[in-house]
């Protein structure tokens, strides 16, 4: 009997049955099946970049009142394939004096670090690469690989602009890692599980975006910076350091940085959907678990659209503003949010789900109001100081 509602489970069982008929025992069949999944999922992840590039170019174009790609194929759908053909047949130039091994390794790592995140994303109740019991820690660890790749790229190219890009990577991507890790802590805190499937299962009643909206906001901002897109694209900054870390790259190697960036953005969208928007949960998933894949892709695309929207809207910020924003606003906010949520959550662990989540939401709103008040007071006093002395002493302002 074919159960299409539980498509992934049926497919898995069918394949395992096939392997067992070929002469493997049960545990070997299960092992071979998970190895097959582990080998196919990276390919699927890489191929996702093809529709993503088209989708993002169209979105950006519409947001900027342009048409976007519309020449190659219907609605420009074949533009990505044309670009692929072009990029495959380009000459691959390595500048003289570059560190050749590191230079070639960096684009590979940039993609591998992003694709590696897909191993733990649960697409449905029973469709995932692997359900690690330390999934969130794995995300933190694997996510740093793409930061490393950008630093390697900037360092190895033997170019001053690229090196400046690598410096900025240190300042930006490493700094925003702190609020990102803090915001990833909140779903763990609320669900009491380090595995991503456990986190999703804990959101059956209330999504964490409602019980911890500030953490979701922290995640949104910090992951935009991790993907290093406008307004946080200081490491490429065409108008300042030409193209930053990827200035010397051409052909397929450049293409991989491009693919890595788009895929990273979407992967962060999927992670945001998993951690804060309830992942594969939704109406009907209990009877038809395969529907979960549709839900998570829709939710992930929504978060991805928020990233693209921010990219199309905000101008690039200056490096000191970027660092101040992180170390003087986002990091302290995260540091105060976590004990607050922990105490509220633990204190009300005996009471009903709705009361507990309402209290968590209230705590978030209170903290947000406090932060906005402090920011308003600081801004007002800075304006007063600027008005009282017409020629402000720079040293006094900097203190």
């Amino acid at each position: 009997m074919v159960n299409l509602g539980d498509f992934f489970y049926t497919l898995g069982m069918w394949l395992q049955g096939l392997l067992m008929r070929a002469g493997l025992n049960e545990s070997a069949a299960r092992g071979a099946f998970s190895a097959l999944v582990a080998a196919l999922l990276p390919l699927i992840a890489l191929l996702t970049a093809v529709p993503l590039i088209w989708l993002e170019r169209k979105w950006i174009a519409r947001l900027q009142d342009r048409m976007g790609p519309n020449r190659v194929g219907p609605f420009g759908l074949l533009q990505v394939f044309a670009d692929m053909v072009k990029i495959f047949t380009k000459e691959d130039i390595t500048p003289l004096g570059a560190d050749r091994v590191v230079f070639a390794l960096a684009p590979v790592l940039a993609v591998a670090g992003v694709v590696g995140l897909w191993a733990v994303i649960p697409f449905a109740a029973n469709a995932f690469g692997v359900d690690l019991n330390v999934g969130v820690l794995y995300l933190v660890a694997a996510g740093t690989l793409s930061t490393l790749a950008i630093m390697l790229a900037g360092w190895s190219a033997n170019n001053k602009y690229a090196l400046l890009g690598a410096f900025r990577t240190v300042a930006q991507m490493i700094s925003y890692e702190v609020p990102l890790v803090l915001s990833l802590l909140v779903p763990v805190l609320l669900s009491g599980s380090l595995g991503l499937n456990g986190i999703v299962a804990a959101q059956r009643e209330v999504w964490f975006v409602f019980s911890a909206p500030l953490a979701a906001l922290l995640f949104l901002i910090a992951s935009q910076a991790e993907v290093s897109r406008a307004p946080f694209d200081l490491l490429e900054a065409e108008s300042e350091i030409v193209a930053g870390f990827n200035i010397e790259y051409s052909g397929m190697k450049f293409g991989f940085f491009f693919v890595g960036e788009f895929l990273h953005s979407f992967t962060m969208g999927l992670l945001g959907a998993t951690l804060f928007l309830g992942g594969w949960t939704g109406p009907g998933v209990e009877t038809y678990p395969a529907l979960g894949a549709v839900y998570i892709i829709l939710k992930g695309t929504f978060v991805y659209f928020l990233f693209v929207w921010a990219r199309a809207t905000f101008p690039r910020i200056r490096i000191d503003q970027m660092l101040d924003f992180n170390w003087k606003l986002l990091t302290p906010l995260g540091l105060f949010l976590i004990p607050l949520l922990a105490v509220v959550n633990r204190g009300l662990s005996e009471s009903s789900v709705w009361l507990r989540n309402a209290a968590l939401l209230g705590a978030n709103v209170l903290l947000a109001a406090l932060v906005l008040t402090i920011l308003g007071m600081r801004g007002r006093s800075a304006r007063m100081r600027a008005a009282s002395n017409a020629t402000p002493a720079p040293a006094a302002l900097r203190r």
Partner: protein
Amino acid sequence: MDNAWSVVGIFMIVAIVLPGAALIMARLLGPKKPSPIKQQTYECGVETVGESWVQFKAQYYVYALAFVVFDVEVVFLYPWARAYGQLPLFATLEGALFILILAVGLLYVWRKGALEWQ
């Protein structure tokens, strides 16, 4: 093969091999006509002066240091975040206190002026 980490291992190997294979394929498909002028360092048409690997500003180092402190401390919090629900209320307050000590550390770095970009 029942070990989850072997699946992650296969996953990461495939994730590295796939782009690597594409790079090799691109190398086979593309033309190869290297010349000293083409391979020069690109600085918008101006010839490069001196070493490219210049000394970097020490302030980047300060931020990297602050990152190491905070990131390591936060990673220590993950086991606590997983387990505090089953522990007595005292453990929650202790964890909260630990995070507030971290916040004092941030305040110290801030007051020292290490977070001012100049």
